[in-house]
């Protein structure tokens, strides 16, 4: 049993918990991909829909986790992935049911009739931008440098597999570069402002982004540390049995747990402090496919605030988003292809 297989099992309850907790860290004015005017955020239909979604997804999570762990050790490693896929599909069905119900009531009761739908920008977001905490990247870079040094002193890799010999370093550089690139893109994207109270919501957004960035770099450093430990094991630096198989997973698991706790707490603070009075956001439901995927070719933004939970998503109406997806996926896929080609 490898760390990847263990993670394949652990991700089933993790996904269930994240989806069930999703509504708690979603802005009240955006429920299940449906834009809701401030005066309707506490309406009975919204409360009932949220409650039904939480119960349904909680039951799905419990069943999926029970079935997955009941089959532990039986069948192939991919069995857990099949259950994960089933859980994901069931959660998506729950989301679409909730979305359909809210949209039906919103249309029949004409929630946005007579509302002034506005978009607000705070120019200080650009003229006095939030400083990117680059110093938090230093520990991750130090771990990468340490990995390179350890690898270089551990002896030369076989001539045929130079890249594979530095696999841990390549993975560290890719993960660190990807996180930093995405975070920089988020810093350049537009903030999610509350139309009812834009000035204060920008202050809260700055605090949220700063907290999430710092937590992300702690997580990233621990991922890189896990990869270093995996490298030590692979290169047999500490001798056979020097690094147990479970040790590289520990920093990753600790980092993930820390990041999710910080993410949830920061998101909860941000969401519950939102305004409830006056001013409706623009009803932009038509640009959200399935209430989750943003496609708006008239919007120059590359990244926008996610519709479910706290986070960011790409604007697939922007060509640069597709280029980014190809770049993100292309590197690991390319490396796998190279590895297979080298093995042939």
């Amino acid at each position, binding site marked *: 049993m490898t760390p990847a297989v263990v993670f394949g099992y652990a991700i089933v309850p993790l996904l269930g918990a994240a989806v069930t907790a999703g509504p708690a860290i979603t802005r009240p004015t955006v429920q299940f991909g449906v834009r809701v005017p401030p005066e309707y955020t506490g309406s009975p239909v919204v409360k009932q829909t949220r409650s039904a979604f939480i119960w349904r997804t909680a039951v799905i999570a419990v069943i999926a986790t029970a079935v997955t762990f009941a089959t532990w050790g039986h069948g192939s490693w991919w069995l857990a992935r099949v259950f994960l896929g089933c859980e994901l599909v069931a959660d998506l069905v729950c989301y679409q049911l909730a979305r359909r119900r809210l949209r039906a009531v919103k249309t029949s009761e004409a929630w946005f009739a007579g509302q*002034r739908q506005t*978009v*607000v*920008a705070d*120019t*200080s*977001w*650009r*003229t006095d931008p939030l400083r990117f905490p680059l110093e938090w990247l230093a520990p991750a870079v130090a771990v990468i440098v340490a990995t390179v040094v350890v690898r270089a002193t551990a002896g030369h890799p076989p001539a045929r597999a130079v890249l594979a010999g530095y696999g841990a370093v390549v993975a560290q550089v890719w993960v660190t570069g990807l996180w930093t690139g995405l975070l920089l893109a988020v810093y350049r994207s537009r903030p999610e402002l509350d139309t009812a109270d834009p000035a204060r919501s920008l202050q809260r957004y700055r605090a949220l982004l700063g907290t999430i960035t710092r937590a992300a770099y702690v997580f990233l450093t621990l991922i890189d540390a896990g990869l270093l430990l995996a490298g030590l094991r692979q290169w047999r630096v500490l001798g056979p049995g020097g690094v147990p198989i479970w040790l590289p997973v520990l920093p990753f698991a600790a980092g993930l747990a820390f990041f999710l706790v910080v993410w949830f707490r920061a998101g909860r603070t941000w969401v519950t402090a939102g305004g409830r009075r006056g001013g409706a956001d623009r009803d932009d439901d038509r640009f959200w496919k399935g209430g989750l995927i943003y496609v708006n070719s008239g919007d120059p933004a590359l990244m926008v605030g996610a519709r479910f939970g706290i986070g960011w998503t790409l604007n697939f109406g922007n060509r640069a988003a597709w280029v980014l997806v190809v770049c993100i996926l292309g590197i690991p896929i390319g490396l796998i292809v190279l590895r297979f080609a080298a093995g042939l």
Partner: protein
Amino acid sequence: MLLSIEPDGPVPIYQQIRDRIVEAIAAGQLPAGSGLPATRQLAVDLGVNFHTVNKGYDLLRQEGLLRIGRKSGAVVARDGASGPPDPAWERDWAARLHTLLAEASAQGLDPAAVIRQAQATVAEFGTEAGDTAAGGLL
């Protein structure tokens, strides 16, 4: 400065951008020398086309309220304390005011109510130039 627009409203978006910036300058939120976001950045923040913001900025530049440089970006060129405006601009403004007051008259608005509204609006901006203008109206 908070810039609020109605993307689906009857007024063109570039005009709304121009109007909100003029109002912010009049209210003292954007004194002369204040920087404004680059057109592409503001376009992202408002979710509108970059050319729309460019058009709004260009209107302000033609009116002498904005200076756009390659290095400095968009900067507020003048405010209420920058002295009297260009006579040509004043003539143009008087013509627009004429049409606006004609609308009020055509709709049967009480002249006293028009003056009260003008005073209240000028007081809202609270500049010395505004007070002088209100006195002139009376």
